[in-house]
């Protein structure tokens, strides 16, 4: 182990961008590797379901173009995890295509590893039979039916597939779904650095500029590992890290700031200390890694949830707003009758009606029940087995909401202000998460095949 190892996190999400000035400053810091996380499940199940990114191809190409240029110029590895957002096969394929395109355009040559994270149903059934799959949080146990109805499922790899790819000679590692911190931990762990410090540093810098002040969102972040502590400093000379910005970061999107789960153990920050090393740099020590007696990977899977049609309108009649909850119930009953007349049974669709101005944001958790706004927004949503049923039910729901009677009604030509023509908006087939579980595996490489490509 050398006495220092440096890494640069260019962006918290590949395609969200980073400042070129920050990046160029970072490159001059004697780096051992550069990396970026490309993944997030925040935007919901659609992107994994469709296998598409939630950033543009153009933005991915811009970010990767700069990173490749820097990595090749400095002769250091470049690691990308959770390619394309969800890290599934079509998402990885898109980013791979972008990299190959850049390499061809600029005559770049390097060895690339592409690591896959999609899981086959046969493999999952086998794991389920052996009792190796369990819920990660408040979700039902997985059953054979859960697996059968899954449309696409990925597992989150740990550091081992990255390490294998590097041992096999890759300079660029393009990985499917991976834990954010594994991308940054793979190389330092291979070189023997303390796992508590490695994982904690990785957790902090995987969001790149998020811990920089001022928060431009465009900064790159430098992490420097030493044998008994690590340093975090922004790449851009005009921004800085504060003790508080770094300490607060483990709160973000985690249920606990003290215990952060990874495939082979838990990062424990209970005894971590944070101190301001200089104006721009924070020094962290005392973090521990508690190794688990089993190796688990998280599964993220989606199933098709039906074809969605939505409808948006406003209402400004005080008499209607005063009784809107009852009115919606009566409209629901009318939709049931009208759909039945079309031979569409209640089991063939789901209708949800959100009332903005009252409970559009929090639904049944909204504590203010008696709000009387001067206007409300209505968002109706139909999910049905197919497009035709979805559109047919929405047409009936729109009719019911627009033209049903209510006590004291004066606005008898129509109850809603409809902003668009056409009024009903087909959204397409939608997805919902049905696997959010952990799977125990014996070999950390087994579910993540590595493909080597010479460019």
């Amino acid at each position, binding site marked *: 182990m050398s006495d220092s190892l440096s890494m640069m996190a260019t962006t918290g999400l590949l395609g969200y961008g980073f400042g070129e000035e920050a990046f160029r400053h970072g490159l001059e810091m004697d780096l051992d590797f550069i990396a970026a996380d490309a993944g997030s499940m925040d935007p919901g199940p659609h992107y994994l379901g469709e296998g598409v990114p939630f950033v543009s191809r153009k933005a991915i190409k811009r970010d990767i173009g700069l990173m490749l240029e820097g990595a090749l110029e400095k002769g250091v590895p470049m690691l990308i995890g959770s390619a394309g957002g969800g890290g599934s096969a079509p998402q990885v394929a898109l980013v791979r295509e972008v990299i190959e395109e850049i390499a061809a355009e600029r005559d770049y040559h390097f060895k690339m590893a592409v690591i896959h994270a999609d899981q086959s149903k046969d493999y999952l059934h086998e794991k389920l039979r052996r009792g190796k799959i369990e819920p990660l*949080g408040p979700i039902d146990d997985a059953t054979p039916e859960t697996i059968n109805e899954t449309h696409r499922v990925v597992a989150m790899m740990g550091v081992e597939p990255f390490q294998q790819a590097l041992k096999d000679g890759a300079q660029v590692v393009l990985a499917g779904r991976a834990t954010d911190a594994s991308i940054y931990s793979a190389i330092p762990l291979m070189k023997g650095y303390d796992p508590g410090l490695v994982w904690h540093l990785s957790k902090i810098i995987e969001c790149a500029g998020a811990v920089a002040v001022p928060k431009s969102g465009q900064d790159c972040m430098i992490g420097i590992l030493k044998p008994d502590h690590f340093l975090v400093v922004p790449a851009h000379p005009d921004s800085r890290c504060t003790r508080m910005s770094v300490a607060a970061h483990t709160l973000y999107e985690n249920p606990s700031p003290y215990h952060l789960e990874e495939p082979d153990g838990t990062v424990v920050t209970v005894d971590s200390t944070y101190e301001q090393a200089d104006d721009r740099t924070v020094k962290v020590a005392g973090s521990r890694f508690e190794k688990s007696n089993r190796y688990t990977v998280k599964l993220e899977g989606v199933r098709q949830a039906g074809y969605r049609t939505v409808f948006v309108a406003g209402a400004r009649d005080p008499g209607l707003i005063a009784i809107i909850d009852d009115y919606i119930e009566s409209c629901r009953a009318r939709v049931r009758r009208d759909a039945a007349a079309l031979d569409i049974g209640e089991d063939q669709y789901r209708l949800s009606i959100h009332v903005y101005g009252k409970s559009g944001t929090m639904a049944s958790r909204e504590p203010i029940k008696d709000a009387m706004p001067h206007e409300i927004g209505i968002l109706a949503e139909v999910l049905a087995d197919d497009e035709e049923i979805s559109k047919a039910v929405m047409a009936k729901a729109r009719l019911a909401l627009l033209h049903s009677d209510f006590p004291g009604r004066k606005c008898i030509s129509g109850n809603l202000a409809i902003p668009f023509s056409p009024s009903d908006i087909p959204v397409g087939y939608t997805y919902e998460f049905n696997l959010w579980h952990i799977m125990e595996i014996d070999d950390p490489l087994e579910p993540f095949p590595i493909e080597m490509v010479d460019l």
Partner: protein
Amino acid sequence: MATLSELTSVLRSKNAGALLCTLDLMFDDVAVYERVRDSGVINQELIASLYQVSQNEVSIIPYDVAMAIKVTVPRLVPSGSFGDTDVYGAQQHGPLLTIEIPD
């Protein structure tokens, strides 16, 4: 008495994965942080009633080093499932803003 809206520097909500919603109450003054932390007001009973979950589903963790209190509850439905109103979970903090903390 003062409300959490007056006492916090950050009061945010966000998904912690597709199944959980996590709320961070952050402070920029250690005395104010300790006043809220030690008031006993932010407890499982309060959070369970505000978010309509059972008390054993509520996690509350004071995080002294960053002067923050972290509260985590299950989401109403998984992110993006039918009937969801907030895919990112970014606007679920409202009920906490008006909670009053004694002097």
